[in-house]
Structure formats: C-alpha cells, structure tokens
C-alpha cells in the first residue's frame, strides 16, 4: 500500500475489449484510451469548462446521464442533453433532486450502463448519502463536481469545502486544475474507475466558475474516436440484469444480527473498498503520469496544493522569483487515493511548505500534515473562502510574512 509503482513505461491495461476498433452508431471508433491521448493528434480548441465537459462526454461512450440544475454545473448538464438529442447517449433525463439523481444513476449503473452526472455545492451534500452506497455497491459512476460554496447564507461562488466531505466516501476523488485537466480526467477517470480490481465511483472535481465558466485553450482528441464501452460483466459484483444465474445470498441476513460475523463482514467490505481505491494507483499513475506534478520540488520553500490554487501559485512563484525568492511547486492531482509517499518524498528537502486553499477549513493542509514528518513545516494558508479569488499577490504576501520578509503590507 502506498508504494510507488514502477511501471517500466507500461500504460494502463484498459481496453482489451471486444469492441476495440469497431464503430458505434455515431460512426465513432472504439479506441484504447492510451491511443486516444498518446497516439492520436490533439487539436487546440478555445472553450469554456462546461463545453469541455460536453466534449469529453461526446467521446466517452456513456450510456446514461441524469441531470439536475444547480449553479455552476447547470450548463454542462444541459449540454450533455444536447449530446443525447444527437444520439451520443442512450438515456438522459432530468431528475427531481440530487438525492434522486444519484439514485437514478445508481439504478442505471446496477443495470450495466456507464453513467455520468454532474453536481455542485449544496447538491453534492444533498446527494451525499448515495456516495458511500455507490462505493459499497461497487458502481463505477462518474460525478463531475464543480465546487461551489455550501455555507449559509446562500452562496453560488467557488469554494472547495465540499470536496472534504467526499474524502471518506470510498470514491476516487481527483481535482482538476484547468479545463485541460478536466477533459483528460473525465475520460481517463472512467477507465481507471472501471478496472475490475478498482470498480468504485469517481468524483472528478474542479473549481466552479474559475474552470467551468472561463474560456481556455484545450487540446481535444479527435471526435471520431471514443472510449471502449463499459463491460458490466467485468464487474467484481453481479450486474442486476437477470442475465447471471440468481442465487440466495444468505439464510440469515447480516442486518438482523448483532454478532461478530456481521461486524466482521461489514468491516472487511469497508477495508476492501479502501483497498480498491488504493489499487487504482497503478492505473492512475500510468494514465495521469503520476498522482502529483513537481516543479523544483528540491527547493527549501514549497507550495503544495490542488485545483486552481495551483494556477495562482504558479504566478506567485514567478513574482517571488523576480525578487530572488525561489519557491518550488507540488500539484496534487488525486486526493483519493492520496499521494502519501509521493508528497513525503517531494517535500523531503523543504523547510517551509505553504498550502493555499479555496476553503475556510484548510483540509488539504491537514491531509498533508498528517502525511509528512516534521509537519510543523506546513503552513496552512493562505485561505480564501465564500467565492473570493486568490490573487497571486496574496500568496506572495503570506509567504513573505511567514518567512519574516518585510513587505509594504506587513510593515505597516
């Protein structure tokens, strides 16, 4: 567990699928995910994050998508509806609430479809009961979480607090920094989540508005290529379609008993879900080129973070460099599985570790603190919350202040 896996240049084994090379009803060719990303020519497009979600799903061979309006994911959910109207999906409809939508997604996944949905902020929390159920039922559903505030009074602005609630649901949780990440993670996420030795749900998260509503240049794979479809008979549990011989599961349902066998069964299943999340590492490392990205991580001052806080940090590092202050960067791509070993190694030489976050809790800093030795090196901040932006100057200021370097602000 948590060991670096040496893949010796091998890519994930994803698509030994009977349909490889065949065409779907839209004339797209079922293609290995590695070939889609690493062999086919990628073409730059100038798109919003919501449009990027649409383009990823166009190529994802999704069976069912269920939609519900909530800012900032409404546009993406509606754009997927357009794909359905164009016959790219088998099923698409609007559910009645996020709790119901996640149930409808579960039903579709139990029945053997690849399933995609989107949600945000309060919707994520309303849906919450479903996420551990998805994981416990081994449903490899993908939900794109376009993070927004969950506080009261009402806010629709970006804030990553909801991701903290997802951490122990048994789902894979990936955090996209840019629209390009979002495109890549959505397509690669299906393949990793559906591996027979993983087969758990995945939340592909991005920061609402910053990613969903801004335009960016994104390299897209050819529209004529799509992922191989989900094969429900590679699932580690029975597909609920009455095409596999039925059986009586037990004479004595566990739920009725308060005894050791009952406790032990539930405990071992929880451990198995955790283990399945860990087993995703080898597939993820191959497809995402590691769970973290590093830039000058041998420096004494490091910024370690995820999402758009990474983009802001890149600019802060440039500003600091102009003043002769050298800072390295570690970008966390997957929050579950958490890159414990990678972060431990990457921060080995660091004396000061800054964790900028778009939430009031500082959960990412806590995760990092619980991972590395000498964790007094971790400085939890800067934080912004409630929809505030995080100007690079704020990161610069906070780093300087913590290091005792005088600035116009802190010497006032």
């Amino acid at each position, binding site marked *: 567990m948590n060991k670096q896996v040496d893949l010796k240049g091998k890519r994930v084994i994803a698509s030994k699928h009977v349909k490889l090379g065949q065409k779907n009803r839209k004339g797209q060719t079922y293609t290995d995910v590695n070939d889609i990303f690493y062999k086919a020519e990628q073409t730059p497009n100038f798109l919003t994050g919501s449009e990027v979600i649409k383009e990823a799903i166009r190529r994802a061979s999704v069976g069912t998508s269920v939609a519900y309006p909530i800012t900032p994911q409404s546009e993406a959910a509606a754009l997927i509806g357009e794909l359905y109207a164009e016959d790219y999906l088998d099923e698409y409809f609007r559910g*009645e609430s996020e709790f119901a939508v996640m149930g409808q997604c579960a039903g579709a996944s139990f*029945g053997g479809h690849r399933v995609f949905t989107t949600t945000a902020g309060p919707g994520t929390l309303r849906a919450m009961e479903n996420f551990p159920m998805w994981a416990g039922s081994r449903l490899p559903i993908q939900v794109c979480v376009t993070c927004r505030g969950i506080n009261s009074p009402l806010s629709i602005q970006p804030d990553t607090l909801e991701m903290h609630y997802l951490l122990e649901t048994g789902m894979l949780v990936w955090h996209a920094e840019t629209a390009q990440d979002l495109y890549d993670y959505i397509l690669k996420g299906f393949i990793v989540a559906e591996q027979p030795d993983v087969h758990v749900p995945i939340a592909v998260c991005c920061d609402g508005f910053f990613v969903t509503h801004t335009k960016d240049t994104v390299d897209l794979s050819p529209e004529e290529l799509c992922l191989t479809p989900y094969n429900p008979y590679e699932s580690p549990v029975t597909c609920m*379609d*009455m095409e596999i011989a039925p*059986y009586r599961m037990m004479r004595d349902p566990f739920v009725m008993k308060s005894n050791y066998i009952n406790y032990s069964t539930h405990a071992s299943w929880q451990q198995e879900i955790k283990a399945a999340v860990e087993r995703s590492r080898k597939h993820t490392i191959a497809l995402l080129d590691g769970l973290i990205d590093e830039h000058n991580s041998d420096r004494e001052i490091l910024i370690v973070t995820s999402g758009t806080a990474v983009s802001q940090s890149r600019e802060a590092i440039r500003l600091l460099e102009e003043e002769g202050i050298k800072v390295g960067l570690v970008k966390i791509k997957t929050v579950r599985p958490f890159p414990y070993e990678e972060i431990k190694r990457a921060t080995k030489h660091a004396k000061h570790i800054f964790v900028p976050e778009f939430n009031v809790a500082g959960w990412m800093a806590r995760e990092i603190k619980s991972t590395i030795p000498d964790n007094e090196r971790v400085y939890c901040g800067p934080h912004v919350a409630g929809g505030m932006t995080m100007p690079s100057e704020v990161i610069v200021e906070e780093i300087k202040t913590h290091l005792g370097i005088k600035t116009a602000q802190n010497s006032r």
Partner: protein
Amino acid sequence: MSKEKIQICEDLADIMPPEYHKLVESATFGNQDRGWKDIGSSTELIEQHSLCAGCPESIAFRYILASLPAPEDTVFVGSTGCTSLVFPHVAVHNIHSLFGNQNAIASGLKRTLKSRFPDVEKDVVVLAGDGATVDIGLDMTMQSWFRQEKFTTICFDNELYANTGGQESGLMQKGFVAKMAPKGKNFEKVRLPEIAREAGCAYVALLTVSKPNRVEQVIKNAVLIAREVGPTFVQLYTPCILEIGKQSMEGLDEMKDSESIGGRFVQKEYISDEAQKLLDSIKIETKERKKAAKEAAKKPVNA
C-alpha cells in the same frame, strides 16, 4: 435469461446447494401459467424467510414471487425495512441501496435494461414498505409516476414503521396511538391509491393478502400493464401483528376484518382505458392458448 444459463456444470453439481438444484430442475421459468398454486411444489424463488412467525408479509412475498409473469427476466428493487430482511433469501436479482430512493433506482434501472435489451421484456418491480413509499420516498415515488416510468410499485402497507419498532407512518390510521404519536395520530391515512391515479398510474389496486388468487391477478395485471402502458401501483395490507398487539395466528383475521364492508382495505381497482384494452386482449389470448392446449391434449397420440 434463458433456462440454459442456469444449468449446472456436471463436475460441480455435488457442491451446488439444494435450492439451486431445484431452480434448475423444477423452476417455473418460462411457464406462462405460473401462479400461487405452485407454492409448495416450486420453492426455487423463496423458501425460508426471516420475518416473525405468522407475518402476513411473508405470505405476501410468496404470492408475489409465484405470480410474476417472468421471474427469469425480473429485477426487484427494495428499500430498508422488514422487506430488506427477506430479499437476501430471494433468488431473483434484487437491489437494496438506501431508504426511500427505490423508485429513483428503478427509474434508472428500467431505462438501462430497456436500452441494453431492446428485444427482451425486462420487468422491474419495486417492493417497499409504507414508510419508504409514502413518507421518506414520496417525492421519488410520485416523480417516477409523473415521468411515466414503466415499472410496478408494490407497497407493503402495515400502517407503521415495523422494523424500527412501531412508529407512526403516513399510512397509519388517524387516532392510532403509536411511538412518535403518543396522543394518537392526528391526521388521516394518506390516500395513496387516489394519489397514484392522479399522478399518472395506469393501474392501481388496493387489497389485503388474504386471498391468494386476488393477489396473483393483481400482480400479473400490474406487471403486464407496466410493460406496455405505464406505471402501476399495488398497495397490499400486510398488518404487523407484532405492533398492533395480535397473535401469530391472527394475521389472516385482521386482514379479513379490514376488507369487509366499510373497512379500510375493501378491494379497489383503477384501470385506465388503455390498460383495460390490454387486459382484455391478454384475456382473449390466454383463453385461446388454453383452449388450443386442451384440444391438443384431447387428440389421440397417434393421430
């Protein structure tokens, strides 16, 4: 699922459990005339249960499973409650996910099965208690009817939360003193059959499970209409003898009392015009099929 799929590999036959052998040897799979009279001789779908002795829900389970038109292509969706204690014993694919979301699960499931198996009729049947159907899950129950989702919803109405120990539910009678209604329930029993009709169900039935032939007919109607026309709803009175202070042998009397004139469960049926047309055509087909079979049986073997 064809019957070939359940065959046992000879080399492994000796380690297969006896009920699986029964499934292979005497399953009523594919028998169009299966019904409640098969109970006893055909136990492959349900044999034992873990409910209280004399619980009417246990007999309701048997009648329903015996009445399914095509168990080999039926998937059940359950919910939390006493029913979730029985489903692990049932040899038909069944899903338990959360409490109250059964009609949401069934919506996604039915659509997916329809899309994956366009040429096979895969029936989806929801079976949940009154708390799941009417209280915590009413939104999803009704929304699935509004959307005209083509599956059957069966509610085991025992007029309270039985599995958690007898708390007030929406389908409880007004005035009944229960846990969480210490002064007696102060509003009327929710009129779910009327709600189902207004929400778009093509077929609605309210009855007790005192008479197996009636249950059989209602379940068959509900499943067949759901295939062709639209959502169907069956509300069955399955009293919780434990929580209403009755003995194990008194369940049947309780149901008979409640369905007598003026009772809460006098049998009611609502059938839309389209559904009625379908039932009429099925009736004619069945009659002709049975007549043909009878005539074929009459013919001398060498003729």
